[in-house]
């Protein structure tokens, strides 16, 4: 893993994923480990993000490293017309590692080919978001005691929701059963269904919230307004996939509700008090998993 970019979760083997999760548990037990005191991390956010950026910044600081970079493209030389290639070439001369979020899909893979230092993809458009996946896996493993043989429900925007795509690919290493709950126009893209078929993984598609008693994990996603070209279509779809506390009545005891956050209205606030709600703890896990990923890539752990 040392000096290897993390662009797509499929860059990591099952063993590497489990190793990261083990390191993350160590950081959760002891979050202040200044193992990267002599390192500079470039944090390049070509697109604004609060949660992911603060989580990375926290992880970098807890590891004792220093951070340089920008928080949106308007404060970078991109506005002067600099290409991504040139920005990456330049920054990789300065920093030991680059954390990058960019609106274009495939930008992180391209950056990893141009940079002399490892790249961590913090989201490339609707494509991949592997560190989110790692924290999701950590949350699942922590609450279920295992990643193997689980039944996972994915609900909401499965077409553009990159977190569900990355999570699907990672969980495919652990013999899952998937239920995809989405409106037709937001259904799981063909390439992921081909991928599951090739791997011989069971999946079911349904248009309505149902069969919840089968679930070990209920992974809710936000139906993002900005993904719709037609605002009427958004209004029609946004209320169809709302989780309410009453719906959890007959679900398994071990069920946990996950959500990458921020939520809008897809989880009713009456779910928050239910012990099955795990989305806030899930977000906290992001710091430990990002510490684990960065320290593994820098070879300090």
């Amino acid at each position, binding site marked *: 893993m040392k000096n290897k970019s993390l662009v*797509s979760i499929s860059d990591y083997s099952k063993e590497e994923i489990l190793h990261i999760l083990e390191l993350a548990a160590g950081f959760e037990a002891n979050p202040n480990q200044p193992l990267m005191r002599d390192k500079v991390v470039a944090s390049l956010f070509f697109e604004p993000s609060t949660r992911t950026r603060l989580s990375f910044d926290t992880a970098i600081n807890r590891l004792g490293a220093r951070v340089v970079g920008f928080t949106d493209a308007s404060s970078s030389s991109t506005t002067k017309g600099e*290409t*991504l*290639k040139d920005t990456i070439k330049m920054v990789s001369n300065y920093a030991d590692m680059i954390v990058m979020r*960019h*609106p*274009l*899909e*495939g*930008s992180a*893979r*391209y950056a990893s080919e141009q940079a002399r230092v490892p790249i961590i993809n913090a989201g*490339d*458009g*609707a*494509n*991949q978001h592997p560190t989110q996946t790692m924290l999701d896996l950590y949350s699942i493993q922590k609450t279920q005691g295992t990643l193997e043989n689980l039944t996972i429900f994915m609900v909401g925007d499965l077409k553009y929701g990159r977190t569900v795509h990355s999570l699907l690919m990672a969980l495919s290493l652990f013999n899952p059963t998937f239920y995809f709950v989405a409106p037709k126009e937001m259904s799981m*893209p*063909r*390439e992921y269904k*081909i991928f599951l078929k090739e791997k011989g993984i069971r999946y079911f598609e349904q248009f309505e919230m149902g069969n919840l008693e089968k679930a070990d994990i209920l992974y809710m996603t936000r139906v993002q307004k900005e993904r719709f070209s037609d605002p009427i279509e958004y209004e029609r779809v946004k209320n169809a996939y709302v989780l309410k506390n009453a719906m959890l009545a007959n679900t398994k005891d071990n069920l946990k509700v996950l959500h990458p956050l921020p939520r809008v209205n897809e989880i009713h606030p009456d779910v928050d008090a239910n012990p099955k709600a795990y989305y806030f703890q899930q977000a906290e896990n992001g710091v430990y998993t990002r510490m684990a990923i960065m320290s593994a890539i820098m070879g300090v752990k």
Partner: protein
Amino acid sequence: MSKQKQLQVSAIENGTVIDHIPAASLFDVISILGLDHISNLITFGTNLDSHKFDKKAIIKVADKFFERDEINKISLVAPHAKLNIIRDYEVVEKRDVTIPDDVVGIVKCFNPKCVTNNEAITTRFRVEDKVDLALKCHYCEKITTRDELQMM
């Protein structure tokens, strides 16, 4: 008598004849092989009657012998193309084209948000399905299908 009135694309002494190109793909084939940038003698015919498609096209390139990798590039738009290698007016070899495992720099990624459509980057695809044609972009990881296929 009618036979003599039929226009034949003239024979070549040495070179390659590419036959059974779907007529609609003729100019894609020319562009993929870079035939619009070479000085060899080239003749082509299009909208010829064909048993395989509605209309076919044929290209004859004098003094040109293609490498297998090079010619396989046209398989995306002309999967049934047949090559006749001509030496001294005789067909010395017949060849089919096969769809390669990787496609580099010929096809445009259909995803407008792909980085390759926004910056000067050579496209790269892994061919995931050779029958129905599914090209997975090395960068954005989206699938481009036959219907969405567009040459650079």
